[in-house]
Structure formats: C-alpha cells, structure tokens
C-alpha cells in the first residue's frame, strides 16, 4: 500500500532572533522524509514568517510511512556562512495511516532544539493518500491500531482478545559511536532522537505484522520502552495485547476488510520472529543467566516460586489433573482445560511450530466483564545479565575481561543482538509462565516488563498476575458456544475472581484458605496481591489507599561478574523484605488485598533500591485481616515488655485509626474491630462466632481461621525495631485527600471533571560518609514521604480530591544520587454524592445497580462514617456553595486560610459570568428529565447514555493529559492514534538556566507542550493513558552541563463533555464546564 505524503508549511511565529544586527531572522524550512528533502523559500527579516508553501509531495512505500518520522527543520539563511539551524519538529505520521483515526495533521508545533529548547512555533499541514494494497507479501502493517490504554478502549468492543505480542529492535547508540567525538552535541542528540523515532516506527510495524498474523486488528496495552545500554547499544522493545476490536457505534461489526489480512497471510513464514530458548547460545557462564525466584515462606504471599531449572520439566498433564480436584468441582477443571485449549489452539492452529513459545500473557489491567474468572496472585521473575559480553559469546572466551571488542565494527554484531535479547526475555517469560502454572493458572494478566541498567549490569524484570480467563474472548466463540453458555451461568460474578484457581490440597505455597465471605461456597485466600486494576464488579468495603514499600541495600562496588553475583545474591532478600513491608503496611491499614502492584528494583553503583507501590483495598469476599502482633525476644524483662506493649498499643491504635479513615467497616463485625483491634485469640473466636450466627455455616472453619490469622512480628534485633518504627512513621494523607496507583480509587465514584496531571522529580544527594542500610532506608523513605507531602500541599486547592495512578520511578543516576520521578493525576470528586453512581463508568454503574442489592445496604453505613469523620478544610455544604458562587462565600470561607487561589478553573472573569448565565438558562430545561431519571435509579445507565447530548461547550485548544484511560465527566468519542515521543535536552549553561531544577522544570514543561501540540494538531483535545516511561537525567555541575532524555507516550483522543445531568443539584460542574470552554481560548 504505497502512499503519497503531502506536507505544507504555512507559517512560523515567535521565532528567535538569529541576526543580531537586525534583530530579525531570515527563516526557511527543510522538509525531509526518508531520503527526500524539500525546501521553502527564505522569508526575509521576520520573526513571524508566512511561507505558505506549495504542497510538498513524497511518494513512498507504506513501510517507510510507518517507520520514518517526518522531519521538519527550520533554519536561518545566511549568505556568507553556513545556515544556522533554529530547531526541528518530528511528526509521527502513523495516526494518518488507519482509517478511523485522524485524517489530517494540522496545527502549530513547537520548534524544538536539543540545546535551546523550544524556539518558536511552526504551522504545518500533513496529509496522506494511501493507495490500495496490491502486494500481499507486504512488510507493512498499516491499519493496525495501537493503544497505550491497558483496557479495552472506551468506544470499542473486544470481539477476540488474541494475546501477547512482543518485539524488540537493537541498534548501536549514536552517542557512543566514534563519530560522536567529532560532532557537536546537537548533531549527536538529533541523531539519537531520529534513530529512536525510526526504531519505534519499525517496532510498531513489526508488532503490527504479528497482530495481522493473529488476525487481530489492534494492539491494546501497548508498552514500548527503550534500554540505554551504553556502549553495548540501544534496545527498543515493546509488548502488547493483540485484539480484534469493533467500533461500538458501527452496527456492522466486522473486521475491517481492507486491513485484515487475507488467508494467505498465514503462509508467510515468521521471519522476524525471535528464536527463543536457544539455551546453548544464551548463557555462556552460569552467572549471566542467574535467574532466581523468590519463595515466600513466612508471609503468605501469592507469589509462586520455583527454581528456574525445573520449569520446562513441569509436566503439563500433571498440572491439569491436579487442578481437577474435588473442591472446585468439575466445572473448574473443565473451564481450565477449555481455556488452555483455547490458548494453545490460538497459538497452534496457523503455525504449529510456534506453539511452544506462545505466551498466554495479557498486558491489560482491566477487562470486559466476565473475562477474568479467577486470580491466582502475583508472579514475577528477575534476571541479572551482563551487557558487555552479549555481542558474541565466543569473544569473551578469547578476550577475557578486556573490552577491546568495542573497537570492532558494530555491524558485525548487530545481527546477533536481537536474538540474544530475545532469548533473555524468552527465558524470563518462560519462568513467569511456569509460575502461573504452579498457581493453577493458564494466563498472566496485567503483565509488564522492565529493566534497570547500571554500567554493564542489567536486571530484567517481568511481573504479572496469574489468572484463569474465560475462553469466550480468546477465540471466535462459535465452536463451543453452548458449552460456554452453561459455564457462564455457573460463574459467580462478583467474588469469583477471588476464588483460588489452584488446588487446595496441592497448594504451591503455604497459604491460608477460608470460604469466600461473599458466596460461602468457594475457597479464598486471606490476602490477595495482583498487578491489575480492581475489577469493576468487585465488592469493596470502604476506600482504598496507596501502599508503598521502600527499601535500600548497600552493595560493594564491583566489576562485571562479581557485581552481577553480588546483585543476584541481594535480590531475593530485597524482594522478601519488600514483600514483608507490603504485607505489614496492608495489615496496618486493615485491608486484605493489593491491586496494581508494581515492584521496581533499581541497580546503582553501590546500592540497590526497591520500591513497591500498590493500592490496598478491603475486598468483601476475603476474610478480615488480623492485626499485627509484636513479640519480643526476652519476654521476662519488665521494661522491655513495657516497651513492646507500648508499641503494640500504638500499632493497634494506628489500625483502628486507618479503619476509620478509609471507612472500612465490614458489615458484621465492625464495632468490635474498631473497639479492640487486638486479635486476642479468645476474643477473636467469640467475635467470629457471633458472625457465624448470622450466616449459619462453617463455624469450624472460621474458628480455625481466627486462631491463625494474627500476623506476628518478632522484634529480635534493632533492624526489626527500625522496621516497626518505619511502619508507624508513614503519615496518612491530609483529610480530603486520597491516593492510589490504580486507575480509580476504589470506593469513590462521584468524580467531578477537574483534573490536573503532573510530574514531579526529586533528586537527593546522600552524604557519602558512613552510609548504613538504616540511614539509607530512612533517607529514601523521607524522600518519598516528603514528595507525597509536597504534592498534597501543592494540590490543596483541589480538595476533596484523589491522586490517581500515582506512578513512582526510582533511578540512581550516580553514586550518591537518588532520583524519584512521580507522575499522577489529581481528580476532584464530590463529597456530597456518595450515592450517585459514576457517570464515567456507565458499565460499572449498570452492573452495580443490577447485581449489588447487598451493596446498596452498605452504602448508608459508608455515608454514616463519612459524615462523622471530620473534614475541617472544606465542610461539605460550604464547598457546595463556594462552587456555586465564586465571589462572596469562598472568600469568607477562606478568610482564615490566606485566600488561596481557588483553583484556576473556578476563577470567574466577567466573560465567564455571562457564559455561565447562558448555561444555567439552558440547564433549566433539562431539569425535568433529571427528576425522571432519579425516580428510576436502576438501569439509568442506558438512559443516561442516550439522553446525553454532545455538550456544545466541548473544549478546543486546551489539551488535557491524564495517565488514566478515561476523562471524568466526559465521553471519549474517538481515538486518534498513539503518541510516542522521545526528546533529548542538553545544556552547557546549566547555571544560567536556573541550575538543575530550572533546566529540568523547563524541559518537562516543554515536553508537555509538545505532546499537547501534537494532539491538538491531530484534532484531539486530550491524551489518555499518558505515561512518562523514562526520564534519564545526568548532570555535571563542574562543567556547567546537564543532559536529560524523556520518553512519553499516550493515546490522543477526542472527548466531549457529558452534560452533567445527574449533578444538577450543584452548580459546580457548570462552573467547570464553563471554565473549560473558556480555556479553549488559551492556545489557538
């Protein structure tokens, strides 16, 4: 499908002064695609040139269209010397290649220079004409849609979810080429930016091909990362989930005819496919492939364990039969077999030969209802690799430790490299797969991969959640339709995912099972750790909260293999401790499940850092967590005893406080728990007996549960003491704030439309003298806590609000530096509308309304405690009023509080007031419908959907950014394509740019600006599933230099505001809607 790319350069504005004499610029533009370059005329003496060029036409192959970025360079013409570059714009034209996305890219793009940052803007129009595909053996994959979103995109329906796709591309890093010594930093940076852009394009195309082979038409949960391996090269790798999606609005649901591959596609051999598991070539020394897995013993982890050698030997049949045990009933076994067959069939039917390496992984974290049957627990694998020998193992034998190979020609190695990397990942994936099997699961969901590189050591990590899936979505569904029907009827909808998938008698790890607190039929574990989002149909009591485990371990500086050994030896201990911390903190919060768990292990020169973030919740189906009991080593010492009991009391108080804070009051046993959280065995059993009276069964089992469940912390040395102290030092967020690292906060569903996405970066320098593990831990802990506190303070004007999708990244750029990067979004919510179902999650509300009669009963309870808990800052009523009129009341309310800026959006200028009036008039006519709607709360989701007219005030110009897959109070109507951008910024005048903070602050602001400009040019008004995947910052203050690399991605979308029908009782949404439409004037 060759095509014609057409580009028009319209104008420039705010260009920098390039000619000091005249204070003006003689600008012209070079437009380059592939090897073809066009130039505009020189527009003399202007900082706002109007080129208004002809259409530059490039006739290109679609393969190139996918790989190459359009490169626009703005230059200053100089008659006597070389033309000076002002800056560049790279435009990814991929979004123009699928039929439903953008049709034209047109708008103002910031002109970016890697040394000077943004220097003015340029207005460009880009179009693509694609010709019909004649060549069936094509290498392109135009038409496959890519989504960063890790759930089925909002305006699509998943017909089939095919499964895992992965690919990686390796190249030399231009920064490390010999030529870099003689070229300018600018040239080097640009070469790097261009190369990564090219590689991303190529990667995406190759993934697209794989999707077409699987007969899918989209990749969801697409995650692309790059590894800067330094001298050994640059790896761009991506994983995703291949799906067949249907646009919801189009009734004729069918695979897009032109895009979907014809039958012949199957015959194309898998040329680019990695060659996995070639164990002979991969590890040349035992160290290099030292994989280890963590086996939890004391803490009842959901993590599966197995040593890496026996994995491949695990007999499939044994597993299958084992799971067909008594407890689950035949139904479970049947389901499992079916799923497995579905998974295998999918991999096997077209190309049997590749079945063996089919990985049943899904990068999704949220699923269509019914997709997730059971969740086993978190599975993870890590492996330490040495980078400096990967090129050619044979070399290592000859050369030993000398690194002379660096001088050799790169190209001779490049061909081998992807396979080496592929083999590494294949190894890890294999391990994950077998862990999942050990948990009785066939699939891994919420799967992700990451690396941490320091010098020549690289830690590869993969993690996910073992799960049993409903086969209906994995295949065409026609074959076994009736069987599924039957299965589906049996499936418990709301607590099913908590039920253990593995065999009770043959548990992979010591765990502690009880009957499900919801259905009382199936077994559930006492705690559940997962990497996915909370399923929409799960019943949660109270609210959730962000739980983090933080850990540092010093390590001796070492070279190569010794270093790798040291790291691999440390890893299990770190993972164990991170896990224990998580478990302790979870108990301290009185919760019993973790979602969105992400454990990051970062390697540095002289230390390892571990940071785990997750969202804790109380799942109604799981048992009440026991408290934490402290046991001292010398029980006879009086003062010590006293100390211990003091600590115990503190812990108990904290648990009680947390339960109140997060509104955790399980219906049956709430008062007692709050009254005395100490799970003294006697009291405990009494407690549970009273509970079982109401539910007239399984008394015995609950009793046994009661004996065991207290979590005992032994304080036998100072370390443990530290741990307990650190447990208690975690400060809860100030009132009015919640935080979580999942998409949305469990227990809050009345979001209002104000959102603020932000990135915050902190770097601390450790005092290098006598660093101990404790001091290090404390520093790291303080760093994270202070960062959170700063965020709460900064966003105080948004209260009540929730920080969602809080994403912490740790890196160790230098010996004594720790860098923490946080990206999250603050979303306001309405405290007064606890009973209202969310308007953004219509599906969810529908399900809740229809299935959760029981849950409705719990709401009054929640409300009750809600009103009791004191919220001094914005009392509910006042808040309401402050939203409605901006002038008097809020001023009075804030008189004491130094009149904060009420958040920008609420600010009212006179123009807004006029518009506001218009809005309220219009609103009046809608009121009647609302009352009707309120009268029928059940099934109102449908109604709402239909009656919501596209809001006239849809925003133009303002581009919202959010790491979430949705925008509160709005409906995404169109996905315009993936945004995947990579920038380098460098300075040689660090002090003049405000030091490191000034430099990075400006750079991140510029990155945001460029993302927004690209989205706006595609015709979009928001980026969802935005993620800053990398922020590599290096400084050299002595030389007054710094460099930073940032990689961001997300989905460009068009959204329209839902007219806020349900919330007519308050005017706040009006104000918001108002401000957003006036915001529209900001950037045009």
């Amino acid at each position, binding site marked *: 499908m060759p095509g014609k790319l057409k580009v028009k350069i319209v104008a420039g504005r705010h260009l920098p002064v390039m000619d000091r004499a005249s204070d003006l610029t003689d600008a012209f533009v070079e437009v380059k695609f592939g090897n073809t370059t066009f130039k505009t005329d020189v527009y003399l003496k202007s900082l706002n040139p109007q080129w208004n060029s002809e259409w530059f036409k490039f006739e290109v192959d679609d393969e190139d269209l996918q790989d190459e970025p359009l490169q626009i360079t703005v230059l200053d013409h100089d008659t006597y010397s070389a033309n000076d570059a002002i800056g560049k714009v790279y435009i990814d034209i991929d979004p123009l290649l699928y039929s439903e996305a953008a049709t034209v890219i047109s708008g103002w793009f910031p002109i970016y220079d890697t040394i000077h940052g943004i220097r003015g803007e340029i207005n460009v129009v880009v179009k693509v004409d694609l010709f019909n595909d004649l060549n069936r053996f094509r290498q392109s994959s135009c038409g496959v849609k890519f989504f960063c979103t890790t759930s089925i995109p909002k305006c699509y329906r998943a017909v089939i979810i095919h499964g895992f796709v992965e690919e990686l591309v390796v190249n030399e890093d231009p920064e490390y080429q010999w030529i870099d010594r003689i070229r300018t930093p600018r040239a080097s940076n640009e070469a790097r930016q261009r190369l990564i852009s090219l590689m991303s394009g190529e990667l995406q195309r190759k993934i697209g091909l794989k999707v077409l082979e699987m007969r899918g038409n989209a990749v969801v949960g697409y995650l692309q990362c790059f590894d800067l391996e330094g001298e050994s090269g640059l790896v761009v790798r991506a994983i995703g989930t291949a799906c067949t999606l249907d646009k919801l609005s189009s009734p004729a649901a069918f695979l897009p005819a032109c895009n979907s591959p014809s039958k012949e596609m199957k015959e194309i051999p898998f040329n680019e496919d990695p060659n996995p598991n070639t164990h002979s070539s991969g590890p040349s020394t035992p160290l290099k492939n030292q994989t280890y897995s963590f086996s939890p013993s004391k803490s009842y982890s959901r993590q599966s364990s197995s040593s890496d050698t026996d994995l491949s030997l695990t007999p499939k049949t044994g597993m299958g039969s084992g799971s067909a045990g008594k407890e689950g009933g035949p139904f479970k076994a049947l389901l499992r077999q079916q799923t497995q067959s579905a998974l295998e069939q999918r991999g096997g039917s077209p190309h049997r030969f590749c079945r063996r390496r089919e990985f049943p992984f899904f990068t999704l974290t949220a699923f269509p209802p019914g997709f997730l049957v059971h969740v086993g627990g978190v599975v993870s694998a890590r492996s330490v690799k040495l980078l400096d020998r990967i090129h050619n193992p044979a070399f290592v034998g000859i050369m030993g430790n000398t690194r002379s190979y660096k001088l050799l020609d790169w190209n001779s190695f490049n061909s081998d490299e992807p396979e080496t990397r592929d083999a590494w990942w294949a190894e890890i994936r294999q391990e994950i797969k077998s862990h999942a099997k050990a948990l009785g699961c066939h699939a891994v969901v919420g799967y992700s991969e990451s690396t941490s590189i320091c010098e020549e050591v690289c830690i590869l990590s993969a993690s996910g959640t073992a799960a049993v899936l409903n086969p209906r979505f994995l295949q065409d569904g026609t074959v076994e339709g009736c069987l599924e029907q039957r299965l589906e009827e049996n499936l418990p909808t709301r607590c099913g995912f908590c039920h253990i998938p593995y065999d009770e008698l043959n548990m992979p790890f010591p765990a502690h099972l009880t009957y499900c607190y919801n259905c009382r039929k199936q077994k559930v574990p006492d705690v559940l750790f997962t990497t996915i989002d909370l399923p929409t149909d799960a019943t949660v009591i109270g609210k959730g909260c962000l739980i983090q485990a933080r850990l540092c371990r010093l390590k001796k500086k070492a070279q190569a293999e010794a270093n790798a050994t040291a790291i691999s030896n440390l890893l299990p201990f770190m993972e164990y401790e991170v896990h224990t911390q998580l478990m302790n903190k979870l108990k301290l919060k009185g919760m019993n499940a973790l979602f969105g768990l992400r454990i990051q292990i970062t390697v540095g020169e002289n230390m390892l850092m571990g940071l785990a973030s997750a969202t804790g919740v109380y799942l109604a189906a799981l048992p009440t967590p026991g408290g934490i009991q402290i046991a001292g080593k010398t029980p006879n010492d009086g003062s010590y005893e006293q100390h211990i009991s003091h600590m115990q009391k503190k812990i108990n108080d904290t648990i009680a406080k947390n339960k109140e804070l997060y509104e955790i009051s399980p219906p049956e046993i709430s008062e007692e728990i709050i009254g005395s959280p100490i799970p003294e065995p006697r009291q405990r059993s009494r407690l549970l007996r009273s509970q079982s009276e109401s539910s007239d069964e399984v008394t015995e089992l609950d009793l046994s549960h009661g004996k065991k469940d207290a979590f005992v912390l032994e304080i036998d040395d100072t370390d443990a003491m530290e741990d307990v102290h650190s447990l208690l030092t975690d400060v809860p967020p100030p009132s009015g704030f919640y935080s979580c690292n999942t998409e949305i906060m469990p227990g809050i569903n009345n979001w209002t439309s104000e959102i603020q996405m932000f990135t915050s970066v902190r*770097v601390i320098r450790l005092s290098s003298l006598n660093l101990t593990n404790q001091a290090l831990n404390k520093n790291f802990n303080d760093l994270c806590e202070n960062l959170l506190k*700063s965020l709460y303070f900064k966003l105080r004007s948004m209260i009540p609000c929730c920080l969602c999708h809080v994403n912490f990244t740790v890196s160790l750029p230098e010996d004594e530096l720790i860098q923490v990067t946080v990206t999250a979004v603050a979303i306001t919510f309405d405290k007064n509308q606890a009973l209202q179902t969310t308007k953004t999650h219509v599906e969810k509300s529908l399900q809740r309304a229809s299935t959760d009669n029981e849950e409705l009963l719990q709401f009054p309870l929640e409300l009750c405690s809600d009103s009791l808990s004191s919220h001094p800052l914005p009392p509910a009523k006042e808040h309401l009023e402050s939203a409605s009129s901006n002038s008097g009341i809020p001023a009075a309310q804030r008189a004491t509080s*130094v009149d904060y800026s009420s958040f920008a959006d609420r600010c009212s200028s006179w123009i807004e007031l006029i518009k506001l009036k218009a809005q309220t008039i219009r609103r009046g006519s809608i009121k009647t419908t609302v009352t009707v709607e309120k009268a029928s709360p059940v099934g109102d989701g449908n109604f709402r959907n239909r009656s919501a007219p596209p809001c006239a005030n849809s925003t133009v110009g303002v581009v919202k950014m959010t790491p979430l897959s949705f925008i509160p109070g709005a409906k995404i109507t169109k996905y315009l394509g993936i945004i995947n951008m990579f920038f380098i910024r460098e300075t040689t005048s660090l002090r003049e740019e405000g030091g490191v903070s000034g430099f990075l602050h400006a750079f991140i602001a510029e990155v*945001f600006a460029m993302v927004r400009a690209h989205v706006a040019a595609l015709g979009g008004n928001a980026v969802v599933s935005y993620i800053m995947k990398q922020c590599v*910052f290096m400084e050299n203050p002595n030389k007054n230099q710094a460099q930073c690399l940032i990689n961001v991605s997300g989905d460009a979308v068009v959204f329209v505001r839902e007219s806020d029908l349900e919330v007519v009782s308050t005017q706040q949404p009006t104000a918001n809607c108002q401000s957003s439409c*006036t*915001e529209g004037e900001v*950037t045009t």
Partner: protein
Amino acid sequence: MTSELDIFVGNTTLIDEDVYRLWLDGYSVTDAVALRVRSGILEQTGATAAVLQSDTMDHYRTFHMLERLLHAPPKLLHQLIFQIPPSRQALLIERYYAFDEAFVREVLGKKLSKGTKKDLDDISTKTGITLKSCRRQFDNFKRVFKVVEEMRGSLVDNIQQHFLLSDRLARDYAAIVFFANNRFETGKKKLQYLSFGDFAFCAELMIQNWTLGAVGEAPTVPDSQMDDMDMDLDKEFLQDLKELKVLVADKDLLDLHKSLVCTALRGKLGVFSEMEANFKNLSRGLVNVAAKLTHNKDVRDLFVDLVEKFVEPCRSDHWPLSDVRFFLNQYSASVHSLDGFRHQTLWDRYMGTLRGCLLRLYHD
C-alpha cells in the same frame, strides 16, 4: 541528605496568588517562606517548613520562566509551553503590571532613563519597596513607554492592545507615559500632598483636550499629521495660549471680568470678600500659566505653578471646595460675556481642562 533537584510541573500550570504577590513584591525565597510561615499556612495545612520551601521555590521558578512572556503579554496568550486558563492569564498580567502608589509618585514625570534607574536604590530605601520590585515597576513603565511611544491612535487603546491590561490599569499607564513624555514636575515638596490618582486624573483630561489627538478626533485635521498624537501636547494650541494674556494685560478687560464674576457670586460665596480681594492675583496666575506654556521648562512646572498660583492662595484663605467650584465655573463662564475678547474657543479648551484639574488638585 540534601535536595539537589526538586520540581513539580503540572499540565495546567499551578499559580498560587499569594506566592505570586510575594514574588512581585520582590521577596527572596527565604523571606517569602518566612512570610508564608507567619501567615499560619503550616497550621492550616499541616505542612512542614521544608514543604513550604520546596513549594515556594517551585512557584518562583515558574514565575521566573513566565516573566519573559509577561514582558509581551500577547505572547503569553499564544505560547504553548504553559497551559494556563485565560482568567489566570489575565490575573498574571494585571498583577505583573500593577504598581505601588508610593513608587509611582517617585518616578512620575521623570525621564524613564538609565539615570533614573540608578536612583531606584534611593527610592527603594525611601519607600520601603524592595529594589527588585522597584526595578520591575520601573521596567514596566519603560517597556510600555517604548512600545507605545511611536504609535498612532489612542494611547489607552494602544496600551490595552499591546499589554492586555484592564481598562483602569491601561488608563493609569497612559497617565504615566504622558507624564514621562512631558516630564511634568511632580516631586517638589509642595506637590507632595497630591496622589497619583490626582495626577492621573489631570493627565486624562489633558490627553483628552490638549493633545494633537484631541483635535485629531475632529475631522478637520488630516490623518497623516497625527504622529504621537496622544503623547505630546498640541504645540499650536500652546502657542495660541499667548493670546489669552490680554485678559490680564488689558486693565479694562480684567476689571470687567472681575465685576462680572463678583456680581454673579455675590452672596453665594462664603469667602466672597477674600475672593474679591484676590481676584486679580488669581486671574493673573491662571492666565500667566497659560501664556508661559510655550516654553518646555514652564510646561514641566505646570503643576507647581498651578499649586503656587491658585491652590495655595485659596487654601490659605480657607476656601471650601464648593466655593472654588463656584468661582472657577463663574470665572470661566464670564469670559463669554467679555465683548472685547475673541478667543472664546481657545479659552474653553484651556479653562475647561484646567478647571477640572484645579478642582482635583484642591485638597489638603
């Protein structure tokens, strides 16, 4: 553990009004943090001093980056780097261009040159406004002056268009520019009692009536001659003012004028006798001011002269404001009944504005 780097970047740029004010007032980060601590913000939010420090630094950095754009407000509207709602943009601009009364009184009418800039140290010490803030305000005046200096059309409109200020602030800037351009003396001791508002009021009247632009609005003057029409006084008009001298030079005319005014005001004025006694002095003062305006030096001393020749004599006789108004009204109106006087329109153009100014200047 020291913090090397600490930043926060929002998709919508966060603007804290309080910190912005502190920044505009020229406080250092340390001082600003201390002031914020004193405001009790820590108690209200439960934050720590370190958090406040980090927050303040962050805002200061943002403002520093925005400052470049604030120098040309339309740029702030079109730039892509900071996403700021329009209402906030307006607030940023308005506050940035706002100035302190105490400061503006010090530089009003002075040449906006490097020389004056050097005096900012003294002004800062005298007014208690930080030097940084003085510099910003001075640079604002100068920047606005430079931009509108060579421009045609209404001064207020030009300022509004290029700096996106509110009507009120644009008018104030017009006055500042007008004063700076004509270098009116405002710093003399006897003028100290006057506020910026008083001068701004007079400036507006003068711009409306005494400049080329004021005539330019009439269709008689061709457009091509209207350079700087709002900034410079109408030279021709100033020349013509000499003609008014006859009012005091011609003794008959002066007596007639006096008798007309006295007849009209008899019994209506509390200070009639004082007025009667002083009439000739006052009238001579007002007319001589007019006659002298041909010289640049005397133009500069306009306000000094007005205060010396009119405001002070009246004040020393304790004229109430209402009597001053009665007198000035009658004084200007009576000239129309002087048959021998041919410059009625000139008189009105002069006295209309002067009357307004004098009434505004007449207070303690």
